[in-house]
Structures are given as structure tokens and as C-alpha cells.
């Protein structure tokens, strides 16, 4: 089963995303911000990355751009968690190389169906 790197600075969100994905059988690695995620991404090979946008130290947009520079992460799906109002953020994310987005708030089912879409 695919390994998913889940990045969010909010512990409750991280728990929820991780729990949902694990319940569906995915392997999940959690990271607390962009810096943490980038470091973890280099030591493993995630099949999918799901990242929050607003985070301290390194935000989601910068993380996506950094990940796309790594050979292992050039083509994999990277989804960003964004809010409905963040149109400009979606655009920024896309420019940085995001595959798509999941709009907050979402429930576990929405998360899973979106992940299934890209999990192939």
C-alpha cells in the first residue's frame, strides 16, 4: 500500500488525517512543518504527500517547491489542504508544483476519495 507523508502543524488535524488514512490501509508518516517534512521526505520515498499550507518555519507552498526539486518527488501527487477562500493560495501552490487540493473543512470520506483519486 502506498506511503503517504502527511504534513500539518495542527496536532488534531494531523491525528485526524493520519488516523483516516491508516484506517484505509495506507502507511502514514507525519511531519509537523515544511522543514520537518522535507527532512523526512529525503530519508524515505513517499508515494503521496498531503500538506497544509499555513505552517511555521516552512509553509506548504515552499515545501512543494522544494519537494519538486528532489528526483523522487518530481512526479508524485502532492495535495495541499487549503480553505475555500484561499484562491490565490491554490494558484501559488499550483505554480510551486502541487497536483491538487483538498478543501477544508473536509470529512474523512472526502479525504479518502480525494486520495484514492491520485493513488492510482
Amino acid at each position: 500500500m502506498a506511503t503517504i507523508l502527511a504534513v500539518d502543524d495542527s496536532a488534531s488535524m494531523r491525528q485526524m488525517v493520519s488516523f483516516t488514512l491508516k484506517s484505509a490501509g495506507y502507511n502514514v508518516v507525519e511531519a509537523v512543518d515544511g522543514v520537518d517534512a522535507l527532512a523526512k521526505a529525503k530519508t524515505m520515498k513517499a508515494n503521496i504527500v498531503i500538506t497544509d499550507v499555513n505552517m511555521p518555519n516552512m509553509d506548504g507552498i515552499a515545501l512543494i517547491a522544494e519537494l519538486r526539486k528532489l528526483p523522487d518527488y518530481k512526479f508524485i501527487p502532492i495535495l495541499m489542504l487549503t480553505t475555500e477562500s484561499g484562491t490565490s493560495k491554490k494558484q501559488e501552490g499550483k505554480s510551486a508544483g502541487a497536483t491538487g487540493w483538498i478543501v477544508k473543512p473536509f470529512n474523512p470520506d472526502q479525504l479518502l476519495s480525494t486520495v484514492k483519486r491520485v493513488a492510482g
Partner: protein
Amino acid sequence: MSIDLEQFHQTFFEESFEGLDEMEKELLDLDMGSADSESINTIFRAAHSIKGGSATFGFTDVAEFTHRMETLLDEMRDGRREVTQEAVNLLLSSVDCLRDLLGAQREHNEPDKENVITLQQQLDDMLKVGSTPPAESSHAAASETRKKEVEEIKETEWLIQFHPHPHMLRTGNEPLRMFNELALLGDLIVKADHSKLPAFCDIAFDECYLSWELTLKGSVKHEQITEIFEWVDDDCDLSIEPVSEVEQHSQKPVKGNGETEKVPQTENKPVEQKGKTERRKSSLSEASSIRVGIDKVDELVNLVGELVITQSMLSQTNEDDSGNQDKLRDGLAQLERNTRELQESVMRIRMLPISFAFNRFPRMVHDLTQKLGKKVELKMSGEQTELDKTVMEKIGDPLVHLVRNSLDHGIEIPEIRLKNGKPEIGVLHLNAYHQGGSIVIEISDDGAGLNAARISSKAKSQGLIDENEVLTKEKIHELIFNPGFSTAETLSDVSGRGVGMDVVKRNIKGLGGSIDVDSEEGKGSTFTIRLPLTLAILDGQLIRVGNETYIIPLISIEETFQVSYELINTIANGTELYRLRDEYIPIVRLHDIFNLQPEHTELTDGLLAVVESDGCKVGLFIDDLLGQQQVVIKGLETNFRRVDGVSGATILGDGTVSLILDVGGLIEFARKRQTKAVA
């Protein structure tokens, strides 16, 4: 899949409350006008997380409320709105309101709805004015939802022209994935156009050269198809037309808004690491703590207490047989060292930095100065000084009272300060440090200071001192700790809520501490609180009366000496006074109080231990002084009942129970007996 979201609530509440604390702290630190963008970012992020979490976990009222705050903060962050005191105040009240809302959710209570509505209205009002029109409308979300024509679900054939831009693969989007999804909607025919494929040696492996013409047949809505292509909207030329119409408009696919050769912009914006943020982080990591159930900690403390007792028992055995038991002695020395180390480290678990008590003050000072029309800078130092949790809990209220007093009575309003040649902004300084086995907390201000004349005239009118009595400045200052004593000309709603300095003093006394005041008129005042680090252990002086051993807290003993006959005076009703230099000190015979058979009944045969509490002294008449040692305090009330003149008990090395004398209580006892004697 059904996942119970409730399991994440606890974490959500915890992090939300932490986020609120952080928001409050940052809001108070904001400089008006030229606010640090990283601070605003931090505040925004906290609000954003709370909003996202509350919406996800189903707390819609919290989400709606936070949304307004977030919008306001977003405008500040983008520089579209100035950081005004008014906005900061509103945000601070909103933080309080969120605490209330979240607290209500956690406790399943009803929040203060009226307050929520008022604040929401205020936020809405503020959002309406004062911001330069946003570059991107906040209603973008609404405009983003494409015009959806009412489409009947009927069997249609769609012709989809899909021409990806060369870079599309680099966004991780895969045409095959989209085709698979389309195939789920109906019958799909895929025709690839490879005419743009370059010669093999010119192929860049990460570029997309193919385009497709797809025919989809089924009861499919237009929006179902656009949804599948939603993520690549800008990365391709796409047209989706019903087949019947295709023949009419035989035109090229509509161009997407993306340029054909749009290179992915790697617009890295690494978050600027300013010195300020780094410093903040390091102080955070210093304060990082584990959560330990207090009951477990109590048990540990108790166990170590037992260990201390065992150790002192062993060392006594050693002293009894003074043979050549070097090994035993060495072992004991080691046990003693280990015990002490273990004790110290276990006590440390209960120790918290005093910042836990100090943290509430920035907000309090902010609110009160606004209310009082004063300008005050709050300085805090020694926040990392550690103090026992139980002491911390009890020192909070007295500190609040002292800070309120300083703000209300101490620091003057700006006009008066300027008139008196002082800087307009007053300084309130909270400082904490360790001194010996105690912690010292100072609350000082550069305000008006205590008015000695007013205090003494007030004391005279209340009959606390005689009309003609002349007191030293120190004695006059001490008068403010008398019950019912207030020098405030008018009682404001800030201080003067019926809690006086006497209560402050009593509470601090109750903790085994003391409070002093040092003040100079016109220059300011400093209140100094001294507290024991912990309530569980004290340094004690063992004394003997008859066959009984008692313990006097070392801190209350002033001196101990043999009595000279000629300095004893007996007044009415047999009260004995001892002339110690220029003071007369009442003598308390401990054997009288505890009904014991003493070794000595003649004062000159025994010893007098002069103890002090509350500025009063008495001489305790005892038979002998024994050693000094640290004792583990055991409550008497929990196991027996309250006994006057005794504050607790401990177990000595030989296993006997020894009572710890309550010096304040004994002095009170002596005073009562004196009054009775005079009456």
C-alpha cells in the same frame, strides 16, 4: 468509512487553547503602526488553525467566529489594514470570547451568546471600514463557483478536447488517472494525437507532447467532467462540448488562461528567520514540559519522604553503636547523598517556572491601563525561576492584587507624571530569583509611592496607633497590612474589592513566606515576597521540652540564649517579659501550653528561643536545643485534626512523631493571654 471525530477533540481543544495563549501574547507584544510581520503571521496562523480544526470537527460557531478574526488578521498581514490599538483590543476580546466558546464546547455548556453576537457585530463593523479594497475579493470563493446551468440528466455524448501544456506532468497530474475517472462516468473513447511528438532524441522525458480527443457517452453532467479536470484547469487547453453542438462550433479548443510555455514558478518564500523568532523558540523549548498526573508526583514525593526518614533512622543507629563500623558509615554517607539527590530531582518534577504565574500579567496590565487611562510598561525578569506547583497556585491571587494596586494607586496618570518630571510611561517590574532556600518575588513600580503622612493620620483615626506616636518610615509602611486599611481616596472598581493587603499578607504567611514593602514618596514602591520553594519540606530546629521533641521552622528563629535573671520582668497576672536589648519580649513556656513535665521550671536553667512572626516576637522557654535537620512535613489535619499552635508533624529518625510548632499561632496565643491578663 465512519470515523468518530470525537476522538480528536481533546487534542483540538488543547492546541486551540495553546494557540489562543500564543495569540494573546503576540497581540500584547504588537507595536502599533509598525507591527512585526512575523508576529502577525503567527497570530494569523493560530486563528487559521482554530478555524480549520473547528470547522472540521464540527464546531461551526467557533469556525464562524474565528473566520471574522482571520479575515481581519489577513488584511493586517497583507498590509491592507493598519494595526491599530482599536483592532488589537477587539482581537483580544475576541480571543477571550473564543476561549469561552471552546470552553463551553469542551464542557458541553452554553457559551455567553450575547457576548458572541456583540463581538461578531463589532468585527463585522470593523471589517466594513478601514481596509483598502483587497486585490482579490474575499468573495472570490463565490465567483469561483462556476455558473452552473441547470442541466437535465439525460443521455448525452460529450466531446472533450484535452491538450495538456508541456509542463503538466511536473504537477504530478497524470492524464491516465483522469481518463480512468472519466471512464467511471460512462463509455469513453480515447483518441491520442501524437503529431507534436518530436524525434526520439529530442524527447524531454518530463514533458507532455500528446493531446487527446475523448468521447464520453452517458448520463453525465458538464460539471462532473470539469471537476475531474479541476486541478489541471490552467495547465491545459480544454473544451467540453455536447456532440450536437460541436458540429456548429468547429473551432479550436478554448485556450486556458495559462501560457503555453508556462514554466512552473518556484517562488520560494522561505520564512524569514528573524532573531526575534529564534529567541522566542529557544525560550519555548526551555519551557517544554511533560504532563505528569499530580497524584503520581505526590506519591513520588511521599516515597522520597519515607526514604529521608529511613536514612535519618539509619544514621541514628550508627551514632548509637560508636564501634568501628566504617563500612556502615560509608554506606550511610552514600545513602545520604543519594537520598538528597533523589529528593531534589523528585521535587524538581513539581517545580514550574514562575512564568506560569507571570503569564497573565501582560494581558492584565494592558486591560487595566486602558481602563485607567495610564501608560505602563511591564518588565518581567527571572521568569524561568522555578517554584513548587502548590506554592505557585497559591501565590497567584496575592500577585494579582499587588499588581492591581501598583497600577491603580502606584503609577500616576501621564499628565501628573509629566508634571512631576517623570517619563510619561510608568514602569512596573516583576522580578523573581532564588535566594538561599527561598524564592524572592519583587513587584516594583516607579509610581507615587506610599504617602506616609496619609497612612499615619489614617492609622490614628482608626485607632491603630496613638495620637502622639512617632513611628519610623518602615513601621508606617507596615500599617498598610492591617485589616480594613485602605488609603485610596476613592475606591475604584479596579482595586478595593474588599480584599486588602491584610489578606495578601495572610495568604503569603499561610505559605510560610513573608512580604515587605519599601517605598519612597514620589519615587515608587517595591513589594518583596519571600516564599519557601516547596511546602513539603522545611529546615527545622529540633528542641526538647521534657521528654518531647518539637520542631521550630529554622526561618522563624531569631536567636537562642540562656536567660539572665535580672532581665526577667513579671507583670500583672504573671505574664513574664524578657528585656532583650531595647525590647520587651513575652515569654511563652511551652510546657504550660502542651501540659508537659519539663526538666526545668526555672527560667534561668533552660533556654529561650526568640521566634518572630508577623513582626511580633516571643521567647519560647525550652529545655534544650537538639540538632537541625530537614523534615518532611506531614499534615495533621488530614490524619487527626487541627491543633492550635501546631502546623504539622514529622517522623524523626527514631520513628517517633514530632510536632512542628506554628510560630504565628503561638504568638497569637501569647497575645490573647496578655489581653486577658490586662482586662
